[in-house]
């Protein structure tokens, strides 16, 4: 390392102090809580841990969480790719409006997002009477949870892809077009391979959030055990009932998911040399 490099002109002492502070902060606020989650989960041994997880209500919560993620992640992936394709490769009226709309779920509190759906589909809501008449349940049922999750995880894929696609420009697509490829061929053979790592990363983030979402889902779920409880909601219920081991056991599953996401992301970055989030290649 050369001393002329302006980023390293600090004295070794200052450098060590800065690194130390950063490290200490990470340990205190990230690593320790994570360890505590697993420690709490295993406080009474493996058997209790496993028992809590195979409890029917816990299993139902896990199943529901997986189902919600399995529906909302593909929806948002397709939407995210379509929106970023449109925004990055074409000029059209209302483009900046679309960009702001995509960001909306980031800026609205999840609780408010949930309330929007209650207001729309709830018994006292706009469409409530009509829905009741036709026997369709959205609020306090699975469709409401899916809707709320889709809304909250809306921006992840699109936000990941828009800068990437904008940076790659339109030349590749135009080259393919001049060579005689049709729209689908351009998408499958040129656009998609160009964005695949960014897309995968966006999907991972979207999935992590879809499984972990609490606020919006809590408002529309109704907390019916075994029916409309997702994992984060189940954690809260157990915790409020002073079943700390149970709460931490389910929480540790969610935390593992975060660790897996982080792990896969790191492997992707290492394997494919992605330096910035999504800047594939």
């Amino acid at each position, binding site marked *: 390392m050369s001393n002329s490099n302006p980023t390293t002109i600090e004295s070794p002492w200052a450098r060590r102090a800065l690194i130390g502070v950063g490290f200490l902060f990470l340990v205190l606020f990230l690593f320790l809580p994570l360890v505590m989650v697993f420690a709490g989960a295993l406080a009474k041994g493996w058997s209790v841990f496993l028992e809590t997880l195979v409890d029917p209500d816990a299993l139902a919560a896990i199943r529901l969480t997986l189902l919600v993620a399995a529906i909302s992640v593909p929806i948002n992936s397709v939407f995210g790719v379509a929106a970023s394709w449109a925004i990055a490769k074409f000029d059209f009226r209302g483009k900046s409006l679309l960009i702001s709309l995509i960001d909306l779920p980031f800026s609205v509190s999840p609780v408010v997002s949930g309330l929007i759906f209650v207001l729309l589909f709830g018994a006292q809501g706009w469409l409530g009477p009509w829905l009741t008449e036709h026997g369709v349940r959205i609020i306090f049922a699975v469709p409401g949870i899916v809707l709320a999750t889709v809304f909250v995880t809306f921006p992840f894929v699109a936000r990941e892809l828009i800068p990437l696609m904008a940076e790659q*420009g339109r*030349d*590749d697509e*135009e*080259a*393919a*077009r*001049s*060579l*005689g*490829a*049709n729209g689908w*061929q351009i998408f499958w*053979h*040129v656009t998609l*391979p*160009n964005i695949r790592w960014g897309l995968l990363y966006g999907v991972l983030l979207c999935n992590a959030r879809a499984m972990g979402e609490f606020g919006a889902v809590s408002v529309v779920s109704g907390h019916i055990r075994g029916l409309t409880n997702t994992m984060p909601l189940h954690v809260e219920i157990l915790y409020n009932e002073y079943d700390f081991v149970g709460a931490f056991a389910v929480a540790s599953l969610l935390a593992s998911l975060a660790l897996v996401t982080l792990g896969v992301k790191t492997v992707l970055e290492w394997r494919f040399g992605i330096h910035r989030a999504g800047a594939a*290649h």
Partner: protein
Amino acid sequence: MSIVVDNISRRFGGFTALDRVTLETKPGEFLALLGPSGSGKTTLLRTIAGLDFADEGHVLFDGQDMTGTPAAERRIGFVFQNYALFRHMTVADNIAFGLTVRARRDRPAKAEIAAKVAELLELIQLPQLGDRYPAQLSGGQRQRVALARALAIEPRLLLLDEPFGALDAQVRKDLRGWLRRIHDETGLTSIFVTHDQEEALEIADRIVVMRGGVIEQIGTPAEVQSAPATAFVSSFIGETNRLPVTRRDGGAIIGDGLATVPDEACGQGGGEIHIRPHDVELAEPGAADALPVTVLASRPIGRSRRITAELAGVAEPLTFDLPVAEEAAAGQSLSVRPVRYRIF
């Protein structure tokens, strides 16, 4: 193939990129679209390719109206400044792309495609590199692969958008000559966009000089250099000294009567005289048709001597190329007679 561009106009919001542009190419011609940035040359090229569409006017290929035909159906080879190679495909797959995306009934057999790719790799002198990825190639090699990919579909027309713009000077020079040879071998009508006048002068059959969405002149390299149609062409192509003149019947007065030069067809009124650095000779002091200048600097360059000189009342210094034997020291007074010049 011959291309006719008929009264094409294109606006982007309030900006007019092309303003009633009309142009015709001869079959097998190598045409350069030359102009500063914002002159509309790239928009014109993209309109011919079908990657952009004109607000008004028509594009005809061999007399057939192609104005609304999408790029995919025009069978043109398009080469981009930044190569636009598909980064996840090998060189061979890149070259084969235009053939593999064809509908099954038009698609050549696998072996046929492979043979075509091998032939093109030979043509671009990279026969060993078919298995490489674009990231493993140098800029010059990438641009050659891009050209091979464009040629694979047996285009009727080759369009190149600043094909050497991203390359360094030496590679650029090599590729110029190579591109001209490829053009001559294939016999394709080719149009390329450049802002580099040297490039256009060196390899094009004819040059279309553009500015502000309008064609200023179409002519051979010799014509645009020796007979520029407008003051813009004269100053854009090659070096020029520009001086204000008052035009009178039969001649023009430079500055406030510094010198008077004859010109039969110069008309009346104000204007501008353009004198190329090498189109002057030394005159006896006080000659009425020569400029009295004061030498600022003088240095030999090859077989000529480049003189930077000052003319009373003119802010910009002038440059002249005199025979190297003409010693001229800074501060010395010279009398310089324009031998060839144009008055606009």
